[in-house]
């Protein structure tokens, strides 16, 4: 109907509000990738020899790997030699010892993004690690966390200070040879977050990392490693934004989670990388490998993601359910608008007895975007009594977008039970008319309907961020009623 199209178009046209650039002096590598670049990167970070060896091994492996092309996305070929692999704000001294020593420009940047790095400010219950381009610039609440025995620091610090833990677990969930982008990340990752929760400890606050890409022509390759020892619990949240630029920028992160006996890790993402403009120009290529291993019995890993940004998303946060009775969960809202493309979903690999997994995926497509759910549920021979429940819902706004579902199920155990539900719906003219007849603005109506559609996922987010996620959807939807 003509009217609805008009409303849709008006709604989809909202601007990206994190698109500013911080003018800050930076040390940036010349574009290009070879063993010398990796050695230089490792040198700047004063890494031990074993780390450099690990990187070089990954690099040599990567050279022989091929970029995957099976995803339901299309993008111009990336020239990996045209990217700069390191950019860091210049520091007056070496490492800032406290927030007072962090460049005020950086503090302002995070404030503008709504992420105050001053501990006294409003996100008081949340500890933040701020990663700016290639480096971690500040980590808050280190002391109270240390009191509880929780280690929360940048991965670079962890390599220096906790080499045994890093050696033991880095690459244990996502090996360097896992896939092309994970291989590249293993060779060139420049910073990221490290979390270690000791036995029996319930982490006293939410931990979060805020990733910001600022420099042009650089890639961001962060590495996150979270280890939860027996009977521990941690909830972690990451947020991401980037300036508006005409060129595409590559973000290839690797996240590894390890949960031992009776441990629980809750990992939430609010991804709002720059999605490109209305014509599909620019935006981040978000090619990310995230995987959690439930090694211990009765352990649980829960992924919740709200994906609204990036020009192209290729991302499948997964759980390897090795321990008996372990639980994997994946709750996802992926919204695409304009020319955005997303191919996202999860893998649940059941290996232990009585393992269970839940997948709730909500895809929302508007504009001329394409949104695909791709999921694998696999039961190994030992997955006696394992079960999975999958629900994939797609919501279309307007009639020029696409939604696709690619569910794969592989079972080597007859006792495994799989339930799968899928729906596709549209924001209907009748729903819009009802809302408007009650005096509600069309934009507000769409946002309300979409939020209702996503409710099952939003309730999994930590409270503070559920509201933010709702608002983010509203902004991302501007210009799109159906």
């Amino acid at each position, binding site marked *: *109907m003509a009217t609805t199209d008009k409303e849709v178009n008006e709604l989809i046209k909202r601007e990206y509000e994190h698109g500013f650039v911080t003018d800050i002096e930076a040390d940036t590598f010349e574009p290009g990738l070879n063993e010398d670049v990796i050695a230089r990167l490792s040198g700047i970070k004063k890494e031990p020899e074993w780390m450099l060896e690990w990187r070089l091994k990954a690099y040599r492996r990567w050279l022989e790997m091929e970029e995957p092309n099976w995803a339901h996305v299309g993008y111009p070929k990336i020239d990996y030699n045209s990217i700069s692999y390191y950019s860091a704000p210049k520091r007056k001294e070496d490492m800032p010892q406290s927030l007072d020593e962090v460049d005020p420009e950086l503090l302002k940047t995070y404030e503008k993004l709504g992420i105050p790095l001053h501990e006294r400010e409003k996100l008081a219950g949340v500890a933040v690690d701020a990663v700016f381009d290639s480096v971690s610039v500040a980590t808050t609440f280190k002391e109270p966390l240390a009191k509880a025995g929780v280690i929360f620091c940048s991965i670079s610090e962890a390599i220096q200070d906790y080499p045994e833990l890093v050696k033991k677990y880095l690459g244990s969930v996502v090996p360097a040879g896992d896939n092309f982008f994970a291989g590249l990340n293993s060779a060139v990752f420049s910073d990221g977050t490290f979390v270690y929760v000791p036995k029996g400890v319930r982490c006293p606050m939410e931990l979060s990392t805020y990733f910001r890409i600022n420099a042009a022509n650089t890639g961001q390759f962060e590495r996150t490693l979270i280890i939860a020892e027996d009977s521990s619990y941690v909830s972690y949240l990451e947020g991401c934004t980037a300036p508006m630029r005409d060129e595409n920028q590559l973000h290839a992160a690797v996240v590894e989670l390890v949960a031992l006996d009776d441990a629980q890790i809750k990992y939430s993402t609010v991804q709002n990388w720059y999605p490109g403009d209305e014509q599909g120009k620019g935006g981040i290529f978000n090619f990310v490998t995230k995987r959690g291993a439930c090694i211990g019995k009765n352990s649980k890993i829960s992924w919740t993601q709200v994906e609204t940004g990036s020009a192209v998303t290729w991302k499948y946060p997964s759980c390897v359910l090795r321990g008996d009775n372990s639980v994997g969960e994946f709750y996802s809202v992926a919204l695409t608008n304009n020319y955005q493309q997303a191919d996202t979903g999860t893998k649940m690999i059941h290996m232990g007895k009585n393992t269970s997994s839940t997948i709730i995926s909500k895809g929302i497509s508007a504009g001329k975007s394409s949104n695909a759910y791709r999921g694998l549920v696999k039961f190994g021979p030992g997955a006696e009594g394992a079960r999975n429940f999958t629900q994939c819902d797609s919501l279309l706004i307007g009639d020029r977008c696409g939604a696709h579902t690619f569910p794969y199920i592989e079972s080597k155990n007859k006792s495994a039970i799989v339930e799968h539900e899928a729906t596709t719906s549209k924001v209907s003219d009748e729903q819009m008319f*009802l809302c408007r*007849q009650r*005096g*509600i603005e069309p934009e*507000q109506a769409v946002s*309300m309907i979409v939020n*209702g559609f996503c409710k099952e996922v939003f309730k999994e987010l930590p409270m503070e961020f559920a509201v933010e996620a709702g608002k983010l959807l509203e902004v991302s939807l501007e210009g799109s009623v159906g």
Partner: protein
Amino acid sequence: MLSIKNLHASVEDKEILKGINLEIKAGEVHAIMGPNGSGKSTLSQVLAGNEAFEVTSGEITLNGENLLDLETEERAREGIFLAFQYPVEIPGVSNLQFLRTAVNAMRAHRGEPEMNAAEFMKLAKEVSKQVDLDPAFLKRGVNEGFSGGEKKRNEIMQALLLQPKLAILDETDSGLDIDALQVVSNGVNALRAEDRAILMVTHYQRLLNHIVPDYVHVLAGGKIVKSGGRELALELEERGYGWLGIKDEETADSSAN
């Protein structure tokens, strides 16, 4: 209050309304009756501003203001309320959230402050009792899994909350058993007020036993063919539409929904 002059409207190039004239004053209750396909629902939808219908000529004013210049939501804020024949579901959006958003949109239009969640909850609970709905249903999704009767009661509850100038009730009696009809009628009667007009659209006269109209109009073939008082409805019940030379089956009205 409402003045309709020579209104013509079509859907997908098919003319449904072929010159409607109607005057409704504040405080009055009018009933529009007619066979299926006569254009009753189309008239309700056109008044509310459903853009699936094209007004080809004529005019509609509400207290002198040209309604045809206004968007659906603007008309709603000026006081037009439509109780839907088939209320649509909005999964995941709680009834409470939906109603509060609507009430606050109206309040903003009148320059009044927003109602907070607690204030609104109190009001909504009171009003839900008026239509015999368990307040627990406020937490359910809009019309989600509601029975036919609950949906209709929900519509009337919304009218009571929004306090419109003109309430249009589209086949509000359809699908109701006798008890539910009584509850809904009580709600509508509670809406009657000196500064408010009510326009009921119905196929059957039984609703008019509960909500007694001041005027009855018979719509057929897109025109009002006869107007009268309460007694006209009774006569129609007794003698059928055939009495007025109308065939009780035409087309198109169902497309209004």
